[in-house]
């Protein structure tokens, strides 16, 4: 018969280290500020990219999959309707932080929330250009 310990000290240290690494990554990816945009990909192809506004949320439909509806705005993005059987994408709810995503595998649709690339989007005004 197989006998082994339930847990040992070096293993606890390893597990806590993995947990800490994951928590630190999660923190940096999620909570360090910047404006966000919502990106929709269908079958791996990006079909829509829009800044998430603070204003009231608007409903968007996906041209390739009209049965899937998104709500984007009010500092969040979400898949609010889909014809898929499991509804995992709808139950994911509102995405508010960088890196969060709602995925509908039956429809091959992913909605991701990402930080707007600061070098491209944080520029308010360009005064003159280098020659």
């Amino acid at each position, binding site marked *: 018969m197989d006998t082994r310990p339930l847990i040992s000290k070096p*293993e606890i240290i390893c597990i806590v280290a*993995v947990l800490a690494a994951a928590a630190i990554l999660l923190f940096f990816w999620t909570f360090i500020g910047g404006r966000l945009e919502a990106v929709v990909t269908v079958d*791996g192809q990006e079909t829509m990219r829009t800044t998430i506004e603070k204003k009231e949320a608007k409903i968007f439909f996906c041209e390739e999959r009209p049965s899937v509806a998104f709500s984007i705005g009010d500092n969040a993005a979400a898949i609010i309707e889909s014809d898929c059987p499991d509804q995992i994408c709808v*139950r994911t709810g509102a995405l508010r932080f960088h890196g969060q*995503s709602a995925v509908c595998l039956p429809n091959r649709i992913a909605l991701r929330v990402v930080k707007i690339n600061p070098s491209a989007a944080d520029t308010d005004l360009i005064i003159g250009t280098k020659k």
Partner: protein
Amino acid sequence: MKKITLTGILLAMTVALAAFEHTLPPVPFFPPGAKLGLSNIVVMYGVFFCGRADAVFLAAGKAAFVFVIRGTVASLLSFCGGFLSVGIIILLVVIFGKKISYIAVSVAGALAHNIGQLAACAALLRTAGLIFYLPLLTVFGVFTGAATGLLLGFLCNALKKINLHKGSHEQ
């Protein structure tokens, strides 16, 4: 008990636990799709007591069952997660033998399951951005893995008393 009988019972339990877990409502604050992985307890038990080939068979059988009740996509995810998980568990048991604990094996198996599924998901959607989901899944994987490992430990200690494998060598 004959080994083939035991493997059959274990496969039935894997499938029943997977189906049971699928019917549970989503838990608030859990990442979508995250589950406890109760059927992995049976797969790990298979690695320890039935042999490695049987454990791989259990993972394959579970993926085949998921194909029947939930379709291609879910089955592919179960297949990728299940095989990576059982592979890592076998590797750890081969390297560390009886020194590695139930909980450590279980946590490693749960993390491997998550990584396998996420990789399959990213490949299906051709969206590398899903990697952002990995830290969150890792945090949950550690907790669910520890929970199932604890259950596995209790289960193995209880089952020692009834010695299921009595007579298996005579067959």
